[in-house]
């Protein structure tokens, strides 16, 4: 294979990798906090869908992308509050509640979209976040395209992971959060409010998941499509495990999955490739399976994960 086309392929694939990983990074880093506090939220998919819709509709109606993000954030807060009430206060089975949230999210987002938009006949796309054309850096050959021509939401993932890592490992709150997920009784006896800490853990997760969903409608594409999240919420769960419940681990693992999405898209666009497009579409999900298999017993999950307290 010739060098130039190969490099171009690699360049466009790597550039797409970070972009495609972005929603997963938001959701996964958020879920790291949730799981580290001892709560398992499998309802990320539904929460991301609500966030995607909320972000889209507010941005579309007001013309302001920032207001859209804010709306998504608020939807994440609301979702998280309800989720936390059920899982932390009512102490219901977390898997069941998560499954319910997925259904509600899928149903509600599609319902609202169809009600408000699909019959309107208007142009439904909005002006998404533009790539920041960083002055000198974006002109560097190869790396310029891969690293320095993204929009602010994508760059936000880097800032997010930095902050998340700092908060989790270098603040008293992070220490409390981690202890609540490992040994809630011990944390309780030192005066830490275990339920409150778990509420915060859940809320961080749902807010970030909602923002991740909004990143799909406001940055990655320019409108809402039913089911736009297509399983990324579930992949985020595997990413948390693969990343050993650490923010940077989640960042890296998300990039890995982003590369699968990117690869799949590039291959679909290439007429020489005769693999049926459905198999390419299945690539990220197959990859998730393989990743989960290869993990065996690596890092340990937070000891109190999924177990209500007291």
């Amino acid at each position, binding site marked *: 294979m010739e060098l130039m086309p190969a490099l171009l392929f690699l360049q466009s694939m790597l550039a797409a990798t970070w972009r495609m990983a972005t929603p997963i990074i938001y959701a996964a880093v958020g879920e790291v906090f949730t799981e580290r506090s001892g709560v398992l939220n*499998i309802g990320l998919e*539904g929460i991301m869908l609500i966030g995607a819709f909320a972000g889209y509709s507010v941005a579309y109606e007001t013309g302001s992308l920032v207001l859209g993000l804010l709306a998504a954030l608020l939807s994440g807060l609301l979702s998280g509050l309800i989720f936390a009430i*059920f899982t932390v206060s*009512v*102490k*219901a*089975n977390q*898997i*069941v*509640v998560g*499954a*319910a*949230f*997925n*259904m*509600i*999210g*899928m*149903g*509600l987002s*599609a*319902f*609202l979209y*169809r*009600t*408000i938009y699909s019959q309107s006949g208007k142009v439904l796309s909005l002006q998404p976040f533009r790539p920041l054309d960083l002055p000198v850096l974006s002109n560097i050959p190869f790396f310029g395209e891969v690293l320095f021509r993204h929009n602010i939401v994508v760059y936000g993932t880097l800032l997010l992971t930095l902050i998340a890592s700092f908060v989790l490992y270098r603040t008293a709150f992070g220490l409390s959060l981690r202890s609540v997920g490992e040994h809630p009784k011990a944390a309780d006896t030192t005066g830490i409010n275990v339920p409150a800490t778990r509420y915060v853990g859940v809320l961080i997760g749902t807010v970030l998941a909602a923002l991740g969903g909004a990143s799909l409608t406001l940055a990655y594409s320019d409108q809402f499509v*039913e089911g736009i999240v297509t*399983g990324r919420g*579930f992949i985020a*769960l*595997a990413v948390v*495990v693969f990343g050993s419940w650490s923010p940077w681990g989640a960042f890296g693992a998300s990039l890995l999955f982003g590369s699968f999405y990117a690869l799949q898209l590039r291959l679909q666009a290439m007429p020489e490739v005769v693999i*049926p497009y*459905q*198999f390419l*579409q*299945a690539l990220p*999900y*197959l990859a*998730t*399976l393989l990743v*989960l*298999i*290869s*993990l*065996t*017993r690596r890092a340990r999950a937070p000891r109190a994960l999924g177990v209500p307290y007291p």
Partner: protein
Amino acid sequence: MDWVGFRARLGKQLRSVWTPLIAIPISLLIGAVILLLSGYDPIAAYQAMWQGAFKDRVAVTEVLVKATPLIFIGAGLAVAFRCSIWNIGAEGQFYVGAVLATVVGIYLGNLPGVILMPLVLVVGMAGGALWGMLAAYLKNRFGASEVVTTIMLNYIAVYITGYLVTGPMIETKGLFAQTPKISESAWLPRFLPPTRLHIGFILAIVFCIVLYILVFKTSVGFAIRAVGFNPDAARYASINVRSNILLAMAISGGAAGLGGAVEVAGISYRLYQLISPGYGFDGIAVSLLVGNNPLGVIFSGILFGALRSGAEVMQLSAKVPSVLVFAIQGLVILSVVATGAYRAVVREKEE
């Protein structure tokens, strides 16, 4: 016969009926609020839904037709959930069953009906069972969470179906994305023409009874429940936890696969891309609503069948997107959870 014990147990069963009876109105109420806030008339919407489901014999049979796959899936999930295996993959298992049933129904179509019909169903069941056992195997061997693996297998199953239906198995190249019809000798008889009600519905009820007996009246069911409650104690009692996990997923996947085969052999007679509009997820609500009881699933299956059936009519006449039903199902689950918790608190205060 131990009458005292029997009455106590009957009382316990009847009391557990309260939960769904309270949960359903609550979720419908919240649904009404959503409708109201979205600019619809909830009364008109629900009226349309009721009409759609029950207005005449055809409508009622349509409810039962829609309930059939839900009952199969729900019964299987009841078994898996009782083993504490969170099978979110019933959708994929349904698809696999449908695919294999279609393959057999088309390519072995020359076999006499008395062999072909059961074969189609058995193969569908086996396919779903294997698809489910795959996730169980990954859990046993690698500790992979079945929640994530079954969901991934869902997507893979759907994509495989999509490929087959638009590619090698397509009826007429370049036209609709569907397979040719399966051989007529495999079609499940419809016993109430001109309605679409077919013996698959009867089969579903029988299946539920069988699973109920299995779970509560046999040693096998005892082991499955023991593993679901306390795998450590089960191991201590020389119960093989891994085998039971495989068995629970085989039953659960098989049930969903059988549901898929029945759907193909009884209703659609062919395979197309959206052979299941989310039955696998409905099934979760179906089972949870009745506390994971294979017999109760018959009733909740019919209820959710009514919801789906009515929702289609609601969309046509009241112009309410039927997709709201999906959200209502999620609300049902939350209402069940909330009601259950509330009643537990009340019971504790009594003691």
